[in-house]
């Protein structure tokens, strides 16, 4: 059976719908011992800001039932170090490298995106308006329509390639925000970023994260993520990249059925560094088993009667 697994998202041409999620895959080299990165549809590198950021104090991680909280807080060396030192060492990957762009102010977003725009082998950015772990900016932009529109619109002016906007799940109406960023030029939306959560140690009475709150990810959030992908798919006509708790190919298919054109694998990379390859293979198996020749036919194919 001849299978087409290619997916288009804006100007991106993915060899398959499987990408890795920002903040869970480093820049790629971290996984080179385990998998062939070139077999992925794409990778999204760590959240990048205009300036170097140290991130939050340790502890930054707590395990929760079927999930984890993180409060990394966008630790990164800043866009210039990315362009100068990191980009040259990964630009040879034969996959779509997206940079996850974040900032505390609209100006920072603009400036960062503008610099990424210059990099030949970066075909797109993921505009992160949903990071729950920073004091300024981050999620604040993603939880109201006006601010989401403001930053998306401003970056659209300077960024000429594919721009996907990453949405926050910590909102009353995610579809409304998706629609709003579509209307000001987003080529796609990705969701969900992490759900804001807390873990506390009853014995010491201390929160388990230095920042008290952190972002919840992993299988625990999958039902919420699927719901949001489905809601957004009813509201927009740009492609959706779905994520949140994807641990295997079955989960990935579920996101596509709910309306996602591609998916990202996040926390699962920690549990099995080879999981993204298994998902690439598993989607093909599923297609063969179900006689699906074009992976695009799975998008939104949930039977709703």
């Amino acid at each position: 059976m001849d299978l087409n697994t290619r997916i288009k998202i804006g100007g991106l041409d993915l060899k398959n719908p499987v990408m890795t999620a920002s903040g869970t895959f480093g820049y790629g080299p971290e996984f080179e011992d385990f998998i062939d990165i070139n077999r992925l549809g794409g990778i999204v590198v760590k959240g990048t800001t205009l300036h170097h950021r140290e991130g939050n104090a340790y502890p930054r991680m707590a395990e929760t039932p079927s999930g984890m909280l993180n409060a990394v807080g966008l630790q990164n060396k800043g866009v210039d170090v990315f362009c100068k030192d990191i980009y040259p060492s990964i630009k040879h990957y034969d996959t779509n490298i997206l940079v996850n762009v974040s900032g505390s102010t609209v100006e920072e977003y603009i400036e960062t995106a503008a610099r990424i725009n210059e990099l030949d082998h970066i075909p797109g950015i993921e505009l992160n308006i949903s990071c729950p772990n920073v004091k300024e900016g981050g999620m604040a932009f993603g939880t109201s329509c006006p601010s989401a529109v403001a930053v998306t619109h401003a970056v659209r002016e300077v960024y000429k390639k594919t721009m996907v906007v990453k949405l926050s799940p910590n909102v009353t109406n995610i579809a409304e925000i998706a629609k709003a960023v579509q209307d000001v030029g987003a080529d796609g939306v990705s969701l969900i970023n992490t759900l804001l959560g807390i873990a506390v140690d009853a014995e010491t009475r201390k929160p388990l994260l230095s920042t008290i709150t952190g972002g919840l990810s992993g299988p625990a959030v999958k039902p919420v993520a699927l719901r949001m992908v489905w809601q957004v798919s009813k509201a927009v006509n740009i492609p959706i990249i779905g994520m949140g708790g994807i641990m295997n190919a079955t989960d990935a298919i579920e996101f596509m059925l709910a309306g996602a054109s591609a998916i990202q694998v996040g926390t699962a990379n920690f549990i099995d560094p080879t999981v993204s390859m298994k998902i690439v293979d598993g989607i093909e198996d599923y297609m063969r088993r179900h006689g699906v020749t074009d992976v695009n036919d799975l998008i939104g194919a949930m039977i709703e009667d």
Partner: protein
Amino acid sequence: MNTDKKRAEDLTVVENRKINKDYYVLKLASKTDLPKIKAGQFVELLVEDTRNAFLRRPISIYDVQPECNSFELLIQIVGEGTQLMSQLQTGDTINTMYPLGNGFQTETKSKNILLVGGGVGLAPLLYLAKKLNDKGIRPKILLGGRAENNIIEIDNFEKYGDIFISTEDGSLGEKGFVTQHSVMNESIDKIYTCGPDPMMRAVGDIAFSKNIDCEVSLENMMACGIGACLCCVTDTKEGHKCVCTDGPVFNTNELKWNIA
């Protein structure tokens, strides 16, 4: 296969030796040649399908048998993950990422070496002692714990160094903290230590005050073990560094510990 690559591999349990109700030694074997393993490196073990141990569990490499393609882990039962792994039986498999981390710096000119292990923190010190022996150095080894039953595997350590013991309640060896042990007053030019954070800081303080070179093996909470998530950072003079890749072993002069 490039044997220096990290792997995620199903290893076979060839032995699960119970030391006492709290500690056990898990011996895992690969079907292929092991990659090169340095003293102080660790593994990440996957406890599958349990509700609370969602992430992998980092455990130091206790000893290596290259001739059998196997290594040993010394594990203390503290929660669900370590409890479930204690039930593994010979022949079971467990998915293991290894070898991870930088390991101890064993290229040293020091001759009077002291290893200080607190509780289960002694785990990475056995293979270190072995490696030092290979270089013709027989270290002093100070094992500390709350009480007698926390001082384990003495016979094993004795082969590679001179053993000193301290317990907080005095039930074995000298009474008190490791930092109060008389061996601390002997002439030492390098310390390697692993144990609870307060212990390592106290040892680091002594080393600093006596100007002794000191390496510590940190045990921060980890999600990925390979430098991808940035969860496990420690604050160094050069900013946040990942304990899983820049460590777990740090020279105390890299850390901010002795800055008042």
